[in-house]
């Protein structure tokens, strides 16, 4: 064993093995084009396969990224802090003290966006209708970074300060309440002593959300206004924190958890388990998809290679008889498939670029907008080509492709020269 491996290193470095490799590579290249039609068909199959792997992955990634980002911006955030009972019982009794100085310092120093909200169920009434909503007491300047709401105002304005006396409601809610900008609505909710707390608000703004059901769900007032209405001093229902990327949440999540031991601290994957499992399921299904496409492709690959070897059994026999070593035959067959794979991958990746570039501004899927909304997605899909996905797809094709080629290559290198020569 040692002798052999020493020999191998020796021979690899010797000029002779370099020229061997060059000869083998030339042979492999020429063999590849011997039957150019077959090679072209295989190239087409490989490049379409690789294209489909990356293109479909890019669309799925784009859709899910968009889904998660838009949910994060819809009052889920990256990390949320609540009273331990708040999520099962979103009542004003389950509110908590505003963040400690320590937490504030950490959040500000880490350059995280954060804000506080009061979120309680309430009844909103116009002269004609009453409906159930969530009353959101917000810090208007913080919402600018945390949610999309301040950019979705259709008519009027968003709240200006935490003691703003106006209310902002959704367009659909306004229609159902039969009310409009400038009119008054009454908010009724429950204070900590189970008494009804109610107050009239003037509608200062009407917002339009991508998902219509949201418009009926949330109404916004200033945080301080809401706290005064409920008589709970400085208390809040939730603290929301957002970093730069939904994939890197764990770092600051752990720190916040340490800093706030008595409250419930949740990353978005747990605040919205649907979204969290979505990400896992997607990661898994992308790889399954890539492997399935490869498997279908591999039948063709192996077939081509078996044929390519079969039709030159006599030549291989002749080479073996002339003293060419089996290892070189194997190298040559493997190089042949490697060239084929590399060419196919180049074409496939070019095809990806050529198809993704024209749709970089998104594909409009608004015909099925409500269905997408049900899945949590928007009405435009932006393809997201991740370098890691491209590498995985290309890697899978090269590595598994060569693995699939090993058996035919091995058989070719172990022909008995005499029999191979006599084969008709």
């Amino acid at each position, binding site marked *: 064993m040692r002798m052999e491996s020493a020999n191998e290193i020796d021979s690899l470095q010797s000029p002779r093995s370099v020229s061997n490799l060059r000869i083998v590579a030339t042979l492999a290249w020429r063999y590849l084009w011997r039957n150019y039609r077959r090679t072209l068909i295989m190239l087409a199959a490989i490049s379409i396969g690789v294209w489909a792997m990356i293109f479909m992955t890019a669309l799925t990634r784009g859709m899910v990224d968009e889904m998660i980002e838009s949910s994060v911006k819809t009052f889920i955030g990256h990390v949320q802090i609540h009273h331990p009972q708040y999520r099962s019982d979103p009542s004003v009794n389950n509110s908590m003290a505003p963040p400690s100085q320590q937490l504030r310092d950490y959040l500000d120093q880490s350059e995280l966006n954060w804000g506080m909200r009061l979120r309680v169920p309430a009844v909103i009434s116009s002269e004609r209708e009453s409906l159930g909503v969530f009353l959101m007491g917000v810090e208007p300047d913080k919402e600018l970074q945390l949610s999309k709401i301040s950019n979705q105002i259709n008519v009027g304005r968003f709240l200006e300060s935490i003691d703003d006396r106006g209310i902002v409601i959704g367009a659909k809610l306004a229609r159902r309440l039969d009310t409009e900008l400038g009119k008054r609505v009454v908010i009724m909710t429950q204070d900590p002593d189970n008494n009804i707390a109610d107050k009239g608000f003037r509608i200062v703004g009407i917002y339009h959300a991508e998902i219509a059901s949201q418009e009926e769900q949330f109404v916004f007032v200033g945080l301080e206004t809401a706290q005064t209405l409920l008589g709970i001093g400085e208390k809040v229902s939730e603290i929301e924190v957002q970093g730069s990327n939904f994939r890197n949440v764990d770092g600051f999540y752990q720190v916040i958890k340490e800093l706030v031991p008595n409250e419930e601290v949740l990353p978005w994957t747990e605040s919205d388990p649907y979204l969290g499992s979505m990400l896992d399921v997607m990661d898994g299904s992308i790889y399954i998809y890539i492997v399935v496409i490869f498997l279908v492709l591999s039948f063709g690959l192996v077939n081509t290679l078996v044929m390519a070897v079969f039709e030159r059994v006599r030549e291989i026999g002749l080479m073996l008889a002339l003293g060419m070593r089996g290892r070189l035959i194997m190298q040559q067959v493997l190089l042949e498939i490697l060239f084929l794979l590399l060419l196919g991958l180049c074409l496939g990746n070019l095809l990806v670029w050529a198809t993704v570039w024209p749709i970089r501004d998104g594909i409009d899927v608004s015909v099925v907008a409500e269905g997408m909304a*049900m899945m949590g997605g928007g009405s435009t899909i932006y393809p997201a080509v991740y370098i890691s996905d491209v590498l995985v797809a290309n890697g899978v094709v090269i590595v598994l492709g060569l693995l699939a080629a090993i058996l035919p290559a091995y058989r070719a290198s172990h022909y008995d020269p005499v029999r191979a020569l006599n084969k008709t």
Partner: protein
Amino acid sequence: MLELRLAWRNVWRHPRRTWLTVAAMVFCNVLLVFLIALQLGNYQMMIDNTLQAFSGHIQIQKAGYQDEPSLRKSIDNIRDVESSLNDYLINQQSASNANTPSSSPRYHISSRAMGFALLSSEERSYGVQVIGVNPDEEPSVSTLPGLIVEGSFFESGQLENNRKGIVVGKVLANNLRVNIGDSITLLGSGRDGTMAADVLVVVGIFESGMVDMDRSLAQISLSHFQELFSMAEGGHVVVIKANEFSQAEGLYQAALQWLNASTVPDGQDLTVLNWDALHPGLKQAIQADMGSAIFMYAVLVVLVAFSVMNTQLMSVLERTREFGVVMSLGLRAGQLARLVLLETSLMAGLGLVLGVIGGGILVGYLNVNGFSISGMEEMASRFNMSPVMYPQISFISIFSGPLVIFICSLLAAVYPALRLHFLRPIEAMRAV
């Protein structure tokens, strides 16, 4: 017959090559059968679970109620409307089934009124949707009455019980901190603007597993709803639940005819809504999912087609001399092309049969036993599905994938077959 034998032998010229190509087809066929059956099964489960839970397949509403529900958009004398529609549908059914008059109805029908109210217990208040239901008919159009986990649904006949009783969702009961027998104060405003207020007793708690419903629905009896909300004999929707999803379209058409046949009392401004209008998101979610699935299937089919094209091209090219000989003996290129296509059909047919058998066994097994993917529970519940999936067995689910692959394989063999027309016997015979 001779051609067939010739073709069959040609197929087995290179057993390994043929098997590899057939294996590609079988792999794809099994995959397609499985995926399509699973998809159709899931869609059906999504539709059934969503519709049967509450909304039914068809609803009659006042025009505009669906988009912007309001207490004022009500149907007057809703029980009359319901029985008029019911009579029409029964007449129609017995007309079409004249020879089997005793057939049981294909559907169930009921009326509801819906409004908004604030429910308060001693400790908590929540604004919820209050539904007035007909205690006798509701259990046949909705699965909620069957999902009572504590107490019971309104019992027919027990008027006093029904009058003061309220059925709430599990999450709502928890939020309100009430149990069976506790009182809840209902506060809302009636149709004419008067106050609707009453103290009700919790008689039942349902748990549907759909958090939105469990959190925001409460049911009281229709007659009490009408009284509380000053609705006179009015209501908001007439619900029709078909026994089988396949009958829904026929019932929808019949209901449309009823609407046009001016048998409607008072000539109210009514509309008939089919399930896809009641749940526009549902149908579109299915379409969106179908779109991406078809893309994936298409890629698989194309790859298999390339594999077949390659195999057949090889098999044509390696027989150049042989073809040259038979052509110089008088065989025409068209006949040879037919032979090549026949060989392809045999090979593709083999793939089809094995694929359908394999896929059928897999789907048949899973159809009985069901299967689940861990980690999918959250996603399943979002679409009202149980985490255990059952692939659907139907002609379409089993055969559509394999047939498409069969046809595309034949199309892929056209190129090799056409090449035969460019063959010159003399040159071909000399080919190496």
